[in-house]
């Protein structure tokens, strides 16, 4: 009997939880705020679902209800992706060690 592909996805899921567990524990506490903003940005990869929902199907009826929900999800996710990564970048740019000035 063949293994259901669901089991493979479940394995990926479980193993990723473990990876997440170890990776996140090694994040230094001073970077917990950027951690939250970047996890927020990457969870917006949900946009791939939105893109499929918006574009797939018959070309003629783009404005099917299902497509409209897809398009709305695209906007929301796009705000998040750009906002999340940029604000993380902005924060991380501020974390500096001062080398030059020993006032």
């Amino acid at each position: 009997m063949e293994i259901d592909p669901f089991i493979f996805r479940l394995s990926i899921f479980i193993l990723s939880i473990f990876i997440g567990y170890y990776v996140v524990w090694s994040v230094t506490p001073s970077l917990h705020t950027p951690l939250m903003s970047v996890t927020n940005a990457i969870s917006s990869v949900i946009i791939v679902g939105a893109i499929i929902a918006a574009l797939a199907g018959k070309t003629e009826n783009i404005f099917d209800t299902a497509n409209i929900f897809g398009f709305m999800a695209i906007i929301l996710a796009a705000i998040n992706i750009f906002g999340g990564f940029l604000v993380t970048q902005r924060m991380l740019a501020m974390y500096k060690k001062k080398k030059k000035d020993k006032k």
Partner: protein
Amino acid sequence: MISENLLAVFYLISGVLFILALRGLSSPETSRQGNLFGILGMAIAIGVTIISVGNFSTGFLYLLVLLLIGGSIGAFIAFKIPMTAMPELVAGFHSLVGLAAVFVAISAFLNPDVFNLGSPGSIKIASLIEMSLGAAIGAITFTGSIIAFLKLRGIMSGSPITFFGQHYLNLVLGLILVGLVFYLCKTQSDIWFWTIIIISFLVGVLLIIPIGGADMPVVISMLNSYSGWAAAGIGFTLENTALIITGALVGSSGAILSYIMCKGMNRSFFNVILGGWGATDQSSSNQSKEQKPVKSGNADDAAFLMKNASSVIIVPGYGMAVAQAQHALREMVDALKKNGVKVTYAIHPVAGRMPGHMNVLLAEANVSYDEVFELEEINNDFANCDVAYVIGANDVTNPVAKTDPQSPIYGMPILDVEKSKSVLFVKRSLSPGYAGIDNDLFYRDNTLMLFADAKKMTEDIIKSL
């Protein structure tokens, strides 16, 4: 346009890049590179998805326009937002992820063919369960984050809202949700699907309203975790590895942060969720203490004390964020350093309104991150330090947590500020903090209260230094 297998490999690559993005955050030096990995992962995921759909007609144009609109809004917010407003921003962003998950689940339900889930009316049972989970968690994340946002922004009162039978109501609603998913699978009727979403919206509100001000760090981390599980639920529905990996990463990340925050307050996760701290137990304890003597001083006294100290530890808290005092604080520290005083910063895990809040504010004010220490790293140093400068923190310094088993914060790890030779406590009044408990520290002999706005006081101290 692109084979299913190749597509899956690309999604795997973006998943790995996202892992590297989080991995980069283990130190500030590697973090910026990590963020670039994250951006690259996202670009790959979006790019291959567009290619795989292969529809470059009118819909594609709309897609680009919407990406542009959303992107500009996001970029605008990212550049404009003051660092003190980060907690609200993150809560707001979580709500968007939640709502996007709901929308994607809805379109998958309405148009299952494009996701290979069957056809309307005969969607695969497994997919139905996965999409209802994704939609339900997404909906809870959405309304929960909206409430968190309103509370953090001060639009809604930060104090816990509790009513009789609240937890039973939540329990019943939870059971109803399970029942609805069951009926949805049985009948495939869309009415159940919409009801699931509506009830989940309600549950999101009910879950967050009983949780108050100082517990906000837990709430934000928890919602962070939920947004991850919602993404994972959708990932299972769409059979998409990038989403599954990301969802798992974000979910466990939020869960760990919630755990760290709970530990920082010595409270169990359930205790926080059930809420109501500070609303109920404050009345009993702090009436008798009104008349105790308090020593108060002015900026000159504080400047004198600190100038003649050999080491000073700064203890920032939420009040510093509210007063926007971080820049003034750094100037004061610079002035002290010119006088040869050794200055470090001590940060409690739950200082502020989200994990790492204080660190970001200090970084914004150009404080070098190797001068900033966590509770365990620095707590022993208070005994050898001359002056502790407490600015905007309160409950996290309260010695009652160590001495009074009756106190609601008993057992919470605190910064041992009282061990330093003298304590300068900047506060506007003697009022208790968010936990509603009187701070014993105010009445100690070695404490000098500086009654003023955090920023104004710090600026005055700079003047007299």
